[in-house]
């Protein structure tokens, strides 16, 4: 048992989780529907939503994560900082989920405007857009993210 604990602790340092807090220095805002009672989430929780390991909000509604298109620089940053995987590893993760008959990847939208529109139309959605995109907080809610 001691050996197992030592091994896991050692690996934590050798293969650190690549989580960073999507805080003031991140280049995206994480957004949800205005009627969603949640206002703050941890990076780990958001990651489980986008990996579909958790599929329910606290109120029991199904989470509908939405990604930007694969070529998006913002998506790449979000994937590395919040989900903790490189884009390649994330695609491999989804191949594994698909072909084992477990899950399918989240919806993708080509632009920030499309993501915002989807969030407005879908009360249980969660997505992210560039910080440079102006957001009307009467239309979407910006999530506070903590470690």
């Amino acid at each position: 048992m001691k050996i197992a604990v030592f091994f896991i602790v050692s690996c934590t340092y050798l293969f650190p989780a690549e989580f960073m807090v999507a805080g003031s220095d991140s280049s995206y805002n994480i957004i949800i529907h205005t009627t969603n009672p949640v206002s703050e989430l941890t990076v780990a929780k958001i990651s489980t939503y986008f990996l579909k390991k958790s599929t329910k909000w606290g109120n029991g509604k199904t989470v509908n994560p939405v990604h930007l298109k694969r070529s998006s620089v913002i998506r790449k940053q979000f994937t590395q900082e919040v989900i903790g995987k490189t884009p390649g590893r994330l695609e491999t993760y989804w191949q594994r989920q698909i072909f084992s008959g477990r899950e399918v990847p989240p919806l993708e939208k080509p632009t920030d405007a499309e993501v915002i529109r989807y969030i407005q139309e879908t009360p249980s959605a969660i997505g992210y857009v560039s910080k440079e995109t102006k957001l009307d907080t009467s239309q979407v809610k910006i999530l506070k993210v903590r470690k």
Partner: protein
Amino acid sequence: MSRITRCIAPIILFLGAGAGFSQQANKIHIHGFSSWGYARTDGNEYLSGEESGEYDYLDFAIALTVKPTEYLQIKAQLYWNDTYEAESSIDYAFAEWRFSDALRFRIGDVKHPLGIYTEFFDVGTLRPFFTLPSSIYHDTGIVAEGYKGAGLTGILQNAGGWGLRYDIYGGEFKMEIEGADVTHEGLEKTFIEGAEEDSEEEHHVKNVLGGRITIDTPVNGMNFGVSGYFGDVEGTENTHSVYGFHGELLSDQWSVRSEYYHHMDGDGEHINAFYCEASRFLGDHWQIAARGDQLLTTFMKINTNTPPSLHRHREFAASLNYWFNTYFVLKLSYHDVDGNRFARPESLDEALLDGALKERTKLFLFGAQFAF
């Protein structure tokens, strides 16, 4: 179904369902994968390889997921293999009702949850070698591609980064076991009487109960677990049981995987199978990989006079891969095999009678694997 129909069916499915339809409400998802390979050995036949070289390895599959409602998913995968003779099959077709993340009910023909690779058995873009380790994933009687029956599955997540994934299932397996005749009375009969050799046997294992538990650790990409099952071999009074463990460590550059299984059947046949494989990316496209793989068969009740090499498989393999991206890869591998459990001459009878059984086999394999 004719060969042409088998070839055209997936295209019709793809075009008929339509990518646009799949995007319409995120309700229908269509994916697929394929492999083609060339294999050549220095004598024995092994995997799809033979001494003169073989271009025939070819397979293709299409996977469909339909979500009619929020809680219901219907999943199916159709598989075509043209390696030896054209064959098509349903890899899985089942319905899943999601009560919660921790509890999902599955019924139908479901992918067999055992160890690491069984649920994506033929998907080449999810592994570093063109083929899976023979000791466990060849037709050894350890893994079945699917079970017909019902099961429960789910994920339990912990805020500290720990997670638990589980599967419990019951039903029936159908599994091909290569060499089953040889490892029992069949070989002696074959050897003595010169009877027609039939080294592949289909076993039905009924009343199966099984499960798998995988622990996700706070270490990014590291998990380990145990799995196993037991059931009754149809037409006999024998039981068929398997248990073992698996572990994975996946990072951006590295992947390390290992599995061990012990298989027992009522005839007193015991199989111990183990492999360890590691791979590393050198930059964005090139990947190197190495694997050690071993299977040993022992008989507790039957006193076989067959050559020990027929019960043994030891393999070292190395691979050099070029990944265009995560969906398309070229693989070149070299395999050095000791033993004749899977690597055998075209005519085993003649080789045994002539005393010319070659215990070592070298295999070169080159191929492309892709998915969408």
